[in-house]
């Protein structure tokens, strides 16, 4: 029997290593085999421990705590002693009723199983299933077969296969991958470079981190195929330094690949040579923009360059360079092995294959979701994500991070495809999907994203550096009830100026959260400006707190908790809040056991 701990950053943060350490302590006699894997994508259930018998997953235990270690160990060790190993089966997700009924309370529920069952995984195909630190584990699931196949093909054929697949850049722009590869291949230059953009920075997006942490070899293989196709012999992975685990696992994977002859000179005895180096970024959001990334890679401050010339022509050190995102590369080996047509068979007319989304926010089941293009937002949010948590009602979903926009409820049946999402004013982006319920103020949400872009602006363009700051100020003013007639129009004017005048994608798309919230939630802006009212009751300055005398039992808890002494009342008598003293901290509402504090 084998216990496999989900040790992506999410699992580790939830305590997976502590549980493993506790089990290892008990396992002095090695009665149980212990292993690790990456992130399966169900971050809301971490720490997850999978019980394998032979090669078969027999039980998936979720939300496991250190205190559970002993009984898990005992049950699994006993089961191991009782029965002989079973032969491995093809599907590792299959579960059967192993005699581990004493762990039933930890077992994943049928509902939660749906989260994975409704997905189609290509980029994430190995995540959470194999040991990311073991090259043999990757090779056992057809790893590095695609590069072997590619080395017998011409680079042109490789590009043609990617063209058939319809794969488009998964970092956000959705530019056809084959086109970029072809441009870099045809560009004149002795030395060409391949760059992987792993500078994932959208708030709420973490699919690239998951891929590197959970399946680094699929990234390496995808990059090798791309390097072969464009004729690059040097490659970089530009990964943000805030992803330490991803960097460590990638370093290990690169070392293992090198040892196995998959990197360096004459790969697998062919004439193809390629080396991959890691460059840790310092965490500037703008370095996700490809020309700023190249500047940073060269050792300069990450500030965007003017395009054209595009990187395919003049990129890293002015040499032809091709940049793709992690998720894009993670699809490549699969496409080569299964054929471009198989990938293109999924999706819509304009968007092929699958896309990974990081589902977060007020969602029941949050985590990584990979689905074929063409499903609706409703399918993902309600079908896979299980809808709004804590019985709330759906209000909007923010897609594409700070560059994206909000999509309201009446557009939930929008198909997930580059064109359809673009028509809503949002974008596919890198796949951040932040779900909001009726308690989210849309003006405040726009303010949050503008705060982010204003702080992350590289400072080069006036529009982006000062314009976003001024927009943030106007939005702040509105959320404080100090908005003026004409503020929305001023915001729109600024938005249009920034869209037209900013040099790079960060600036040009920065107005999107504001424009879409104005478009779909103008009434909320007006309520703030005209009535000094926040319909979602989220904006602290506009909240009012009062006590419902019918519900108040006079327990005095709220009065004791109130930091400014705004609550008065005798014991067992209804209390009251003095609005002049109240600082709207919300402590009373959080303390009251009777729901007597009314937030208006």
């Amino acid at each position, binding site marked *: 029997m084998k216990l496999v701990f989900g040790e992506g950053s999410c699992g580790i943060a939830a305590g997976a290593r502590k549980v493993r350490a506790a089990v290892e302590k008990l396992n002095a006699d090695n009665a149980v085999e212990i292993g690790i894997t990456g992130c399966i994508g169900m971050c809301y259930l971490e720490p997850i421990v999978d019980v394998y018998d032979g090669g078969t997953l027999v039980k998936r235990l979720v939300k496991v705590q250190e205190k559970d270690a002993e009984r898990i160990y005992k049950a699994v060790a006993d089961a191991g002693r009782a029965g002989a190993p079973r032969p491995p089966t093809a599907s590792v997700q299959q579960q059967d009723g192993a005699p581990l009924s004493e762990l039933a309370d930890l077992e994943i529920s049928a509902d939660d199983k749906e989260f994975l069952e409704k997905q189609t995984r290509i980029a994430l195909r190995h995540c959470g299933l194999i040991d990311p630190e073991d090259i043999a584990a990757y090779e056992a699931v057809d790893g590095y077969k695609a590069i072997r196949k590619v080395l017998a093909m011409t680079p042109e054929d490789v590009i043609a296969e990617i063209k058939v697949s319809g794969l488009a850049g998964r970092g956000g722009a959705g530019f056809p991958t084959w086109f970029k590869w072809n441009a870099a291949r045809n560009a004149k230059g002795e030395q060409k470079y391949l760059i992987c953009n792993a500078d994932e920075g959208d708030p709420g997006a973490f699919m690239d981190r998951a891929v590197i942490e959970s399946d680094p070899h699929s990234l390496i293989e995808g990059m090798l195929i791309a390097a072969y196709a464009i004729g690059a012999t040097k490659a970089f992975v530009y990964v943000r330094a805030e992803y330490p685990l991803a960097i460590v696992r990638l370093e290990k994977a690169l070392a293992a690949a090198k040892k196995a002859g998959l990197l360096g000179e004459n790969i697998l005895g062919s004439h193809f040579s390629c080396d991959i180096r890691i460059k840790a970024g310092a965490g500037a959001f703008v370095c996700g923009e490809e020309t700023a990334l190249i500047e940073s890679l060269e050792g300069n401050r990450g500030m965007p360059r*003017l395009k054209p010339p595009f990187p395919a022509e003049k990129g890293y050190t002015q040499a032809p360079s091709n940049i793709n995102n992690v998720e894009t590369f993670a699809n490549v080996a699969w496409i080569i092995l299964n054929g471009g047509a198989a990938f293109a068979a999924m999706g819509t007319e304009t968007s092929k294959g699958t896309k990974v989304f990081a589902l977060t926010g007020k969602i029941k089941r949050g985590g990584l979701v990979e689905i074929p293009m063409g499903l609706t937002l409703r399918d993902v949010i309600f079908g896979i994500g299980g809808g709004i948590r804590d019985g709330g009602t759906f209000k909007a979903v923010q897609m594409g991070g700070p560059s994206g926009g909000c999509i309201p409820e009446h557009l939930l049946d929008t198909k997930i495809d580059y064109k359809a999402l673009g028509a809503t004013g949002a974008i596919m982006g890198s796949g951040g999907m932040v779900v909001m319920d009726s308690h989210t103020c849309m003006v405040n949400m726009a303010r949050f994203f503008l705060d982010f872009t204003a702080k992350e602006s590289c*400072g080069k*363009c006036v529009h982006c550096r000062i314009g976003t700051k001024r927009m943030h100020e106007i939005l702040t003013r509105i959320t404080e009830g100090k908005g003026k007639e004409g503020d929305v129009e001023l915001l729109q004017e600024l938005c249009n100026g920034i869209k037209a*005048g900013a040099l790079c994608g960060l600036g040009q798309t920065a107005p999107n959260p504001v424009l879409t919230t104005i478009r779909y939630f103008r009434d909320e802006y007006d309520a703030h400006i005209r009535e000094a009212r926040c319909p979602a009751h989220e904006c602290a300055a506009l909240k009012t707190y009062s006590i419902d005398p019918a519900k108040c039992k006079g327990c005095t808890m709220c009065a004791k908790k109130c930091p400014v002494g705004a609550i008065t009342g005798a014991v067992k008598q209804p209390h009251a809040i003095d609005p002049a003293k109240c600082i709207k901290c919300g402590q009373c509402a959080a303390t009251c056991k009777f729901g007597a504090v009314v937030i208006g």
Partner: protein
Amino acid sequence: MDTEMITLEINGKTVEVPKGTSILNAAKAAHIKIPTLCYHPDLKAGASCGICVVRQLVPSRNPADNGKLVPSPKLLRACCTEATPGMHILTHDPDIVQVRKTVLELILANHPNDCLQCPRSGRCELQSLAADFGIRENPFPKEVLHHEPDTSTPSIVLYPDKCIKCGRCAEVCQEMQNVWALEFIGRGEKTVMQPAAGVPLAESPCIKCGQCSAHCPVGAIYENDETAKVWSALQDPEKTCLVQIAPAVRVAVGEAFGMKPGELTTGKIYAALRMIGFDKVFDTNFSADVTIMEEGTEFIKRFTEQKDLPLLTSCCPAWTDWMEKYAPDFTENFSSAKSPQQMLSALCKSYWAEKNGVDPKNIHVTSIMPCTAKKYEISRDENMSASGYQDTDVVLTTRELARMIKAAGIDFNDLPEEKADDLLGAYTGAGTIFGVTGGVMEAALRTAYCLITGEAQPPSIDFQAVRGMDGVKVATIDIKGTKVNIAVAHQMGNVEKIINEIREDRKNGVKPRYDFIEVMACRGGCIGGGGQPCLATDEVRAQRTAGIYTDDEKCTLRMSHLNPEVTALYKDYLDGKTGAQGGEKAHHLLHTKYQKRDVYHFEA
């Protein structure tokens, strides 16, 4: 080779320009002015401000329009977008003007707008644009994040509150000058131009050349104004106030009074300085001639002995600072001769003091220079106090001199010309050309030729090979069969190449390819100095250069060793010997030493 020409249409006008021309310059050729702010012709277009946006007319995508040209919604930055054949460009329409106006409003919302107290008032590019666009009310609330000014160097002041983040200073510092002291630091509204890790300028690689201040479009970087010190010395009855002016000042200060760049104002400056209250007016051109005597004989000695070659000129304090930081392996190659400024000041407080019976402690020497680094040079080490006192008391830049003249109510334009005072005031044409790139070399060659051959004059007094704006000029000079290999570089960014060539020769153990190298840190030499009137372009530099060569040609004597006051100095005071000839007095007063300095100077 013929340049390929392309044709495009701007505002309906057909324009023909060489391939590779930007839309901005193509418009200029059609007499259309597209407003700019971050753009400067010296620098790679930075594309940061967005003032120069223009619109392209593109074929309509609507089939009903039948390919009619319609305005594209996307705006192009004219400064850095190449004009392409057949392009149709619209430079002004109400929308474009509005976008430009919004940019200005945004900048002004982030700017102190205290023009009345700003050193750049009247010469500020932002101020002129705000006036051109008629900015009256600003819809955006004003918010300026305050940063303390950086006054750590004696040369320039960084005043971040006024900075508009155009990036010119960083581009100048990094690309033109190869110094890398200034960079964009921080993000968003917290972006500030300063040295890496936010260290003060004095602890950074800064060489004090001041090119950032000469290129700054606003008042965010300017010279450390020391006019008050000079005014107070002039009012001190104890002090005898002496003043010297550098060669490049005379062809540039007139610009502040509406004259054309390059107009020679030497006599007017002498007169103005006397009116301001200086007791004696001397000319740095005199000590430039002395420099040739010292450095020329030093070169002849080294060349004859084939020792410590190449000889590197050391007149430029920004260059010596760069060398001490970035090329300390060349300290032995530097001419030990001080700069003309330091020679003249040392002579003021020794030779002149003795001749006139004035106690040097009561002598105050002001030096008018086209340079901000000179402010740093006067206290760089103890050799700058050869007279027993700090030799130069205050350095004023050309810009500060212009302000003093204006403050003194002098009608500069109509001022009758005067002459410099005796002993340290006479100069030859060789002294005056110190103000341009190649000038020190040319002056040295004129004298060296005569000293080596014993002839009265070289076959041609003009050494054309060392003149002109090429970043690096290389030549072999034939002095009656003796071949001297020389190199001349100006603009710091051009220097590393020749330094590396010598390093390569050293590595290969061969004779260095150059015997004598002249370096000036600023583009065009001192005429393009960091203390000159701001915003010089190559056009302005060419006019100032022409002014210097006119001054040279006007001189009856054009070789330093013929300067009668120089001859008198050596005869009467320096025991007839230069430093290289074993003259101890000359060595003490007129020579210095160099040392390795850290690129980043951190106080422990």
